[in-house]
């Protein structure tokens, strides 16, 4: 019984070490970079995956490709939030606050429990604050 426990602990420790090594290798090989939305076509495809569907009629990409904001024909707003190398599309809740500071658009209350989101939209940032 004790021998079996020792063997299982050894197996667990070995697995833990292997996991740490694989994660370190992934980081060393450059897999810790964030994702980028390169084109409006890609952004539209990602917005379309928002729960309930979202057909973009107007959108603006973050200047560094770290997200995007869009509006549909019903006037709803949605954002693409970076998640590692990928993006998550979230339709903004009615109470979301959108404020501009220079070329930056800050979004609070983008989804329950989420931290505020900042997008670098250049001159377009001011235009999106009016649509909240």
């Amino acid at each position, binding site marked *: 019984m004790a021998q079996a426990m020792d063997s299982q602990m050894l197996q667990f420790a070995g697995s833990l070490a*292997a*996991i740490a090594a*694989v*994660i370190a290798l992934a980081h060393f090989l450059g897999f810790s970079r964030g994702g980028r939305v390169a084109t409006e076509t890609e952004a539209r495809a990602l917005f379309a995956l928002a729960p*309930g569907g979202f057909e973009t009629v107007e959108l603006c990409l973050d200047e560094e490709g770290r997200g995007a904001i869009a509006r549909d024909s019903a006037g709803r707003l949605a954002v693409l939030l970076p998640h590692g190398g*990928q993006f998550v599309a979230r339709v903004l809740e009615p109470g979301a606050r959108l404020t501009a500071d220079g070329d930056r658009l800050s979004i609070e209350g983008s989804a329950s429990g989420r931290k505020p989101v900042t997008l670098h939209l250049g001159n377009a940032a001011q235009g999106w604050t009016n649509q909240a």
Partner: protein
Amino acid sequence: MQFNPVTFAIPVFVALIVAELLWARRRQPRAYESRDTATSLAIGLGSTVAGGLTAAAVLAMLVWAHSATPLSIGWAWWAWPLCFVLDDLAYYTFHRSAHRVRWFWASHVNHHSSQHYNLSTALRQSWTGFFAASFIFRLPLAFAGFEPGMILACGGFNLIYQFWIHTESIKRMPHWFEAVMNTPSHHRVHHAVNARYLDRNYAGTFIIWDKLFGTFAAEDDADQIRYGIVHQIGSFNPLKVVFHEWLAIARDVWRAPWRHKLSYLWREPGWSHDGSRETSDMIRRRWNAAATDQKD
């Protein structure tokens, strides 16, 4: 102590993940993300612990079912391939239920939670399978007279087979192989959130079950696959990934009117009593309607 082939396969899993990382660096840099991989591997390690803690109970139930039946097939050589094929059918039944019944989905969802599709994704196995009573799908094999040890070994080999199909590095296998076996192409479809692919290709080892039961969809190279789940979690926290759907079920059951409470357990994921959410069938219908409108 029972024989578990998965234990012996783990070093091979690690070696293949390293090989795929090296391939991805040159050929497909978006295939991996280090935090996503860390989450997958942490969940994989946790699942081995959860499996170890409940293995004796699962074995005891199979032994009980085996002793309760007058049928006894024994350890004849021909019983092994027969057991493997029937266990794969049992897996298909389990897996289809895991996508169509929210109670089982809560236990299975973590396997689909990654927005990447690589060999590390294969290791996002369930921690709560025993709690969800997923073992019931294997009991009919014990009642049919198969030895409990044989059933568990075949289940282990089935799990090992499913590891290598979690990759984008293999486009298509030879035609005859694609026709019979589950392959990376078929399983990419299964992990997709594209409307046309939702709830398709439940197979474990043999894709024939999907073709027989009408749940097969072929991969279309013109339609880029997006991976994950309909409501992407957006978190790398393994505890959130593993338990989020159980918590969501608890919230829904608590808030629902009495006559609808149980429906939040047994209806399909996305079902709601007020129609405020979408099931995969509703998403597919919406997508089909939009595609038809575009053609017109």
